[in-house]
């Protein structure tokens, strides 16, 4: 679809969909009251309408020079990277900061095709650095985990 439409039109279509959802959600907001003629609903509705307008302009007149489509392998790497961050969010309360950081580093480096040994070495060193900076020096509070507060 990206090749047929171009990234400008894809983004414009996404924006129209988001603006539609936003406008429909704004109908549930209370209307203006005495002393507040505009009320909490009108401003979001103006914004929703403007986003649709600008998206339609982009849809009709996309840029002449658009960025080339991102290769599939790169998109997969980006998706893996996003999944690694999601994994970090899920694992942080379970195994703690140091272990999740190590896994994030290792996963990221392997996704970018670093050799396993080098990736392990980098991941261990960087985890130690981040642990010292955030946990020891900056005293950032991380939730207690099943392994206790140390990790």
């Amino acid at each position, binding site marked *: 679809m990206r090749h047929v439409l171009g990234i400008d039109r894809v983004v414009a279509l996404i924006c129209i969909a988001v603006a539609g959802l936003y406008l429909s959600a704004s109908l549930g907001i209370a209307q203006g009251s005495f002393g507040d003629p505009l009320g909490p609903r009108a401003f979001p509705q103006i914004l929703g309408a403007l986003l649709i307008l600008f998206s339609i302009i982009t849809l009709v*007149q996309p840029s002449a020079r658009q960025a080339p489509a991102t290769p599939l392998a790169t998109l997969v790497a980006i998706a893996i990277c996003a999944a690694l961050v999601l994994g970090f969010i899920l694992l942080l309360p379970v195994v703690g900061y140091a272990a999740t950081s190590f896994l994030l580093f290792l996963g990221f480096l392997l996704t970018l095709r670093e050799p396993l040994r080098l990736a392990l070495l980098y991941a261990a060193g*960087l985890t130690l650095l981040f642990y010292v900076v955030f946990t020891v020096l900056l005293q950032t509070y991380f939730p207690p985990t099943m392994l206790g507060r140390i990790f």
Partner: protein
Amino acid sequence: MDTIAFLATGIATAFSGWNFVYVLIGAFVGTWIGMLPGLGPSTGIALLLPLTYGLDPTGGMIMLCGIYFGSMYGGSISSILLNTPGDVSSVITMLDGNPMARRGRGGAALFCAAVASFIGGSVGLVGLTFLAEPIARFALRFGPAEYFALMTFALIATATLMQGAAVKGLMAIVIGLMIATVGIDLQSGAARFTMNSPNLFDGISLIAVIIGLFGISEVFTNIQEIMARRWGKVETVGRLWMEPSEWKRCRFSFLRGSVIGFMVGVVPGAGGAVATLLSYAAERRSSRHPEEFGKGAIEGVAGPEAANNASVGGALIPLFTLGLPGSSATAILLGALMIFGIQPGPHLFTENPDLVWGIIGSLYVANVVLVILNIPFIGIFVRMLMMPGAPLNAIILLLAVTGAYSLNNNVFDIQVALVFGVIGFLLRSAQVPLAPLVLAVALGGGLEQSLRQALSLSDGDPAGLVPSGIAAVFLGLSALLVLLAAILPATRLMSPRNRALRRAAKKEKRPQTQ
């Protein structure tokens, strides 16, 4: 106390206790962050913000401003040696700096950039010192309608003055304003777009949005570069000194660039990128050797670099005096001030003089520290620049994730940052500028409240939005900018050159279709 006495107190604050150490750390780390490919002041400040949470407001802001200033210096290093700018404002330096490096004059280009940055930074700071307080006093006259007009102007100027299609800038602003509407409405108490999640009652965190848009989406963008094996090659530095003829060629460029940079920096939305562009054009026009530009003319480094750093002092004026960030970097500084419980605006100079003069004083100190740091330590920075892409981006990613978490010690902010990382990547791919979006998130709440307050005061009469000349001027300028943005592309399309190009293209197509 007069301005000079306040400045002396500010400089004393910069040297007191740990503050000088924060200046040094900020300047060094800022230079390092600024020179890394793709990382500019905005990303640098956003990523390193968590390091300041444990500090007192003055110390924290001193360190952040040091990072801001340092990253402006650092941007030139990667532009000259890697042909990859750290930020949009360093793109122009690359045009002549990199050809100089390829001719073995990288050292002279770096030296020139450091001197220009120092001169530009100094001019910008002098302007900030003497103009900020009078502007703050003037801003005390502003009511809701004037603030609404000013914020509208700032946002429209950001959208239309940036490079690329204005409609995309306007789109970015609307998206930013939409993000700012999430949360409990301050005037009516109504919940808007919160999906009944308590995490959204206070709205979406500006800093989490910035970390996502600049930190995480930067990593996504860099993955493209690393996988395509386009991660840069460092040019050799050569001797770190300028020849007497080069000094002679640059002497007026430093001053011209500084003045242009400061004046452009004050205009909301214009920032370093526009300043460097205008300065480069001015240098080319006034040069005796315009044909050398783009091939290694040293004035092409001196003017834009001075303009870039002078714009910092200019950009801090609307931030401190009106609470109005003019660029994404100053929007992050606004967020940082709010985290420290400080509301910038006309009262900042009277209510928090120690803080604001401490910051200004520390910027003077940082400017001197940076020129000392940049010249003898350039070899160390070049070695740091050679860091491979994969581990570097792994560091950026974990800094972003940890930074988002430590905002409220809550994983929800990491989710927000991730969502905005994906949005940022999509928008970057479509060349939608991110700076107007960030500014709109930062200003959205204030803009809507000012609009509603102004209409309340006039019982809903739209004429209440223009109660004074100030409001009329800003709204008029905003309308003019939108009009120009709509008309200019059409006139360019109708220019004789473009018409000729279209005719040629049609001729080329005709045989294929027959």
